[in-house]
């Protein structure tokens, strides 16, 4: 009982003494989990929205276009004896794209559909009413390309596509409503149907007539389209392979039927070729791939930093561990303290990350909405990836801490009480250059030895700073590439977000390293103070090491960053290294160094306020 009290008290003291470190581990969890779970959710959320639209708006799976007579025959066959079991509904409509004027890049579209009985590609009425007679129309909502029409506008519609022998004018129709076509999600460069062979022909206006109210016979003598939907709609999962295969099979069978009714001038376009939706899906996948690379990289860095933080904590805790060991506690009981420490830090971080991670994915989805009008879906409070990713990162940190603490606890108490010191006679390389070494003052000698003695620690520190610089540089590189891609405003926002989180992680990594360096040196700092070292001389003792390590890490981060970017660009198949601006190479290491300056400034008081009595304390 008495023993346990002591155990609990010393554990509480562990948390209090290393509170700043616990908080900085939590902060690393927050930055990492918020970004990676937010990033991880983006692709899934977009696909979810595509799926929702496919189900709720009943997107067409195939469209057959061609002369009205041929299509009428195909439709009759499909509805009659040659029925394809998988097909659910067939809807006829008429669509005409007309150049705005000779040589223009834009086309106006006139669509005649049974608006009162829509079964496929259901238009959403955003404002106004549906047409009540043949003099009323609804128009597609305005986008960056599609011009704005107001309810009440009276317009003239010219129908003069290339395949019609003469133009038809439909004058004085009144706009009574504004709609959104679920297949037109892109807000710029929605391509025109009939000019796909010519580059850059975009839709400038869409006017929908209600074909059930329209009596003019010209329609039925021309070209029409059949929208076809399939029955088993659950097979669709954002253009997955099973769906594509299935549609290809159905397409093949329709072609056979067309042959049997002697149709030759038709054309089948599947949903897989719907420019808007497919480009959204592909863009989401690209962002998803990019996200995955960054997620893995962020996890690796976070784990590295948390592990090195914990193993340095364990080094500082050797004497406490020795005391507990002599009191008869098992290795497991001793390790439990540190497991608890890292789990508490992790859970605090994870709990705080719930909201920001949703914010991240929300902001990225908003960025997508600059280019695409996605169907709105309700997102769960906690993202899909949240538990998986945060669980993985907490678990990994815990396991690594457990291994390290068990290994440390396994030493005999007396071994734990002997401070870890350089091996006898060991010298750093520069010491062999005698004339140089002799001239160095103690401060530099000490710094060089600190830097190079503990190779494992050195490697971990430099690797952390290097990786953080890689992230910052890679984000700048992506930003530069996003800048040259026209019309990809959303990409810029995504990369800016990446940059912000990379910078935050970089700052935290360096802050954490500085904080650890100070806390490991408390006794040395107090001793220097007793010896009469002035404040700036004492802080210099810690800072020099930080600056040297940061400089090494930041500079090594550049070639590593280039390598990383080349890999990323190669993997996602877009962007080029040549687009990375020269200043990115400069700013990234400088930023890393600025973070080191900030961290040392922030922790300045911690050093200066060190109690000189620390130097008198009994070695625990």
């Amino acid at each position, binding site marked *: 009982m008495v023993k346990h009290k002591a155990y609990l008290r010393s554990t509480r003291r562990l948390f209090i003494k290393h509170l700043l470190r616990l908080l900085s581990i939590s902060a690393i969890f927050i930055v990492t989990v918020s970004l990676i779970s937010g990033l991880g959710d983006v692709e899934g959320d977009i696909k979810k929205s595509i799926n929702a639209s496919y189900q709720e708006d009943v997107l067409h799976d195939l469209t057959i276009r061609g002369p009205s007579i041929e299509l009428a025959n195909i439709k009759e066959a499909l509805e009659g004896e040659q029925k394809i079991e998988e097909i659910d509904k067939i809807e006829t409509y008429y669509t005409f794209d007309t150049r705005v004027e000779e040589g223009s890049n834009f086309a106006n579209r006139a669509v005649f559909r049974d608006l009162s009985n829509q079964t496929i590609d259901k238009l959403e009425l955003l404002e106004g009413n549906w047409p009540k007679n043949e003099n009323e129309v609804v128009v597609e909502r305005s986008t960056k390309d599609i011009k704005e029409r107001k309810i009440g506008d009276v317009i003239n519609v010219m129908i003069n596509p290339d395949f019609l022998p003469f133009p038809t004018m439909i004058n004085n129709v009144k706009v009574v409503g504004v709609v959104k076509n679920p297949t037109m999600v892109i807000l710029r460069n929605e391509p025109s149907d009939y000019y796909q062979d010519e580059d850059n022909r975009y839709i400038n206006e869409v006017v929908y007539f209600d074909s059930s109210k329209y009596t003019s016979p010209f329609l039925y003598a021309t070209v029409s389209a059949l929208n076809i939907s399939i029955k088993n709609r659950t097979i669709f999962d954002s253009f997955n392979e099973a769906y594509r295969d299935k549609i290809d099979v159905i397409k093949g069978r329709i072609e056979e039927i067309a042959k049997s009714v002697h149709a030759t001038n038709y054309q089948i376009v599947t949903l897989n070729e719907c420019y808007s939706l497919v480009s959204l899906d592909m863009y989401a996948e690209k962002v998803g791939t990019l996200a995955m690379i960054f997620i893995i990289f962020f996890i690796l860095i976070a784990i590295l930093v948390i592990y090195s933080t914990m193993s340095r904590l364990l080094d500082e805790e050797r004497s406490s561990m020795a005391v507990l060991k002599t009191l008869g506690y098992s290795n497991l009981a001793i390790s439990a303290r540190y497991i608890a420490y890292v789990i508490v830090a992790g859970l605090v971080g994870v709990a705080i990350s719930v909201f920001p991670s949703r914010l991240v994915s929300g902001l990225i989805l908003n960025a997508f909405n600059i280019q695409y009008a996605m169907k709105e879906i309700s997102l769960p409070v906690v993202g899909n990836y949240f538990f998986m990713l945060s669980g993985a990162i907490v678990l990994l940190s815990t396991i690594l801490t457990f291994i390290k603490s068990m290994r440390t606890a396994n030493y005999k108490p007396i071994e734990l009480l002997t401070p870890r010191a350089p091996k006898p006679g060991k010298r750093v390389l520069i010491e062999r250059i005698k004339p140089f070494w002799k001239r160095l003052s103690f401060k530099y000698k000490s710094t060089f030895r600190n830097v190079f003695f503990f190779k494992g620690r050195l490697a971990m520190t430099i690797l952390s700073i290097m990786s953080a610089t890689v992230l910052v540089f890679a984000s700048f590189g992506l930003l530069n590439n996003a800048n040259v891609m026209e019309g990809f405003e959303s990409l810029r926002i995504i990369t800016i977000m990446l940059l912000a989180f990379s910078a935050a992680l970089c700052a935290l990594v360096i802050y954490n390293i500085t904080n650890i360096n100070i806390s490991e040196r408390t006794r040395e700092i107090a001793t220097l103070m007793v010896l009469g070292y002035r404040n700036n001389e004492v802080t210099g003792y810690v800072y020099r090491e930080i600056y040297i390590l940061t400089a090494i890490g930041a500079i090594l981060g550049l070639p590593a960053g280039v390598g990383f970017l080349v890999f990323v660009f190669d993997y996602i198949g877009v962007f080029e290294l040549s687009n990375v601006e020269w200043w990115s190479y400069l700013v990234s290491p400088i930023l890393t160094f600025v973070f080191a300056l900030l961290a040392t400034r922030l922790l300045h008081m911690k050093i200066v306020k060190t109690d000189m009595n620390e130097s*008198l304390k009994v070695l625990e």
Partner: protein
Amino acid sequence: MSFLELKNVVKEYKSGEGICRALNNVNFTSESKEFVVVLGPSGAGKTTLLNLLGGMDTVTGGEIILDHKKISRFNKKQLTELRRHHIGFVFQFYNLMPNLTALENVELATEINRDALNPMKILSLVGLKNRASHFPAQLSGGEQQRVSIARAIAKNPKMLLCDEPTGALDYKTGKMILRLLYDISKKKKKLVIVVTHNQALKQMADRVIEIKNGEIIKNYQNRHIKPIEDIEW
């Protein structure tokens, strides 16, 4: 005027809601080249006294005068300069920089000092000439404490403050260290103040100051100084 004078020194700490008086009206004087032993049980105020003498803390009341300077009136910067140039400190746990060799640890103090002595000569003086290039981890406890003493005296300080200098050492090594400190006070003409709870040490001191509950209960000159080698405990 004596070399070191303490007049009505009071030191109070805030403890929780109340105030704790660690030192109450402490008065004593001593001369340079004196070997002073401050005795007392733990919690008596020994460390507080040491902190005040060493310029690591400031008095709540009273005065401390060292070599005609009222150090109790010094501000933080002046205290740093005082420690830098005039105070040598020997710690119970040596407090050597683990990544500096014995010689470099001495240089640590001399580098910032105006009238420092030659570090190598001082190392020879404490008998560590051959160990100069060893790291603390390669030295025994006694050797480490000798480095610590060398570091303190290489500054050529006015006063050498030693906090339980033998506390972490075995009996024989402890005696050797005390001999070294005693010789320094005599040969180098330094005021050496040793704080300890070891009653036996009063036999070797020029002056004995005993504290209890923050007050001096005895302060006398020792007429029958015994060499350390003859003291047993």
